Every structure is written in structure tokens, then in C-alpha cells.
């Protein structure tokens, strides 16, 4: 049995990755909207996003809406795959067949 991915296997990061995985491939979400959906503080969210970014699971892009800078977050292909593997591993650990 391989160990569970430590990047995802923490409550806050699991919540972030789970939320991002509900979006379609290629869809991204702004930092404030994600924060609103997760009900996390900005500091807490950015701390964990940075760890996910370091693992290349999340890509952060900066864009402009008029003159306002907007930060978009998106699960990378690696991140989505890691999330799927993590979910499969959890289910196997719990005796599921998936």
C-alpha cells in the first residue's frame, strides 16, 4: 500500500482540490469566489494554495478585468490526476472496489 499523497492529505488542501475538481477541465475560478465557496480566510487559503502551486497541482494566473487585477486558480492536469488517484486510494483503503 502506497502512502496517501501528503500534498492533498490535509483537510484544507483536500477541500481546495475537491472544490477545484468540481469545475470542468480548463475552467478556472477567481481567488475571492473560491474563498467564498470554501468559506476560508484569505490568509489560510493563500498559504495552502501556495503549497499546491509548489507541487504543480494548481496553476495561478493573473489577469486584468478593466484596471482591476484578478487572480485565477485552476487545477493542473497533474493536480486532477493526483486528486483522482488520492480518491481511488481512499476508497481502496476503505474496502471499496472502485
Amino acid at each position, binding site marked *: 500500500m502506497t502512502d*496517501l499523497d501528503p500534498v492533498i492529505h490535509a*483537510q484544507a488542501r483536500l477541500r481546495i482540490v475537491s*472544490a477545484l475538481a468540481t469545475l470542468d477541465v*480548463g*475552467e478556472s475560478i477567481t481567488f475571492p469566489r*473560491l474563498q467564498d465557496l470554501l468559506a476560508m*480566510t484569505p490568509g489560510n487559503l493563500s498559504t495552502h494554495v501556495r503549497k499546491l502551486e509548489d507541487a504543480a497541482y494548481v496553476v495561478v494566473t493573473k489577469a486584468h478585468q478593466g484596471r482591476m487585477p484578478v487572480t485565477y486558480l485552476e487545477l493542473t492536469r497533474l493536480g486532477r490526476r493526483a486528486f483522482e488517484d488520492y480518491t481511488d486510494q481512499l476508497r481502496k483503503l*476503505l474496502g471499496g472496489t472502485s
Partner: protein
Amino acid sequence: MRYKVGMNEHDDDRPLDPAAMLALLEDQQQDVQRKLARYVPAILLAWGVAWLFGFGALWAIEGAKPAFAIPLPVSVGIFVGLMVIAVIVSAVAGNRSQRGIRSSPAARFTGTVYGITGSAGFFAIFVFAAALDANGMDQQLMNIYYPSATGLFIGLMYIIAGAIWHAIPAIWMGAWIGLVALVAPFFGYPTNYLVFAVAGGGVFLIGALFMLAYSRGKRAAV
């Protein structure tokens, strides 16, 4: 959500046991989907009211005589006004629910084609009516043609939306609206408008209640 914010902000870097982590994962995904669906009840409510009272007003031009009758310009005004309000509510609520979310090029393409098909379809129904009129169709028949042609088209658009965005209730609603549009003409004018008001408006109102229960967190098979 089992996870409450602020309660364990210092613990959230730690894992729970596997069962609790799986529950957290599933709860989180359901919670996001519910929050994204939060504005759907308002849209369905607006259309339910528009159909119930809009088609109801058209029916009341002649349908309730001699008890009462709403003058034609007034009922057409009510109908158009309620439809315009429903369009505005849909646009505003749709925007609110999608705020902060940038869709993929593929999703944008699907959305654009769907949107243009909707507008083009309504325009085509109008052009077809003009063609029927040019061929001498009885004006009374317009009261049969317009609601059923648009109803069939709306029903199909709901079914296609359900297929594209995997929303099973939208498929049922679309099928029901199409059925209403097919059955209503057999009641004849003006009763056909009453069928649209009650059976058509009713399904939007039921849908609004269903989606309200869903977005409030009651488990529903969506």
C-alpha cells in the same frame, strides 16, 4: 458541511482518518455544487410566475366570459412584461452564479452555440408565423400556433441543456413542456392558454421548489 470554518484553522494542515477524509471530500464537492445552483430557484420561479400569470392573462381575454374579461392590450402587456422580467431575472441570476468562474474555450463554444440557437429558434418561429400568415392562415389559429411552436422549442432546448450540462431534472421539465405544447391545441382557443398557464407554469414552480430544497442541502437525485 461537517467542516466548520474558524473552528480548527490550526488543525486543517493535518489529515483525519481515511473515512473522514472521504466524507470531507464528498461533502465539499456537494457543497460547491449546491452553492453554484443557489440562483436556479429564482430563475425557475420567475418563469413559473411568467407562465402562470402571463398565459393566464391571455386566457382571460375570452376564457372567463361572462364572469370577467381582461382587455386584450392589458393582457398582452401583462404577458410581455412578465416574460421580459423573467428574461432579466435569468440573465442577472445566471451572471451571479457564474461570477468569478472563467469557462474553458470548449465550454464557451458550447454556451455560445446554445445561446445563438435559442435566439435564432425564436426568430424562426416568428418568421414561420409570418409565412403562414402570408399564406392566408386564420388569425385565430395564431393563438394555437404561437404558444405551441414556442413551447415545443423551449421543451427541446431544456432537454438539450439537460444533455449538455448533465441536469436530469431539466430533461424531465423539457419533456413535460413539450408534452404540454402538444396537448394544449386539442383544448382549442382560449382553453389552450389555460393549459399553458397551469401545466406549464406549474412545472416551473415545482422545479423551483425542488431546486430550492436541493440548494438548501436536502439530498436530491440531481
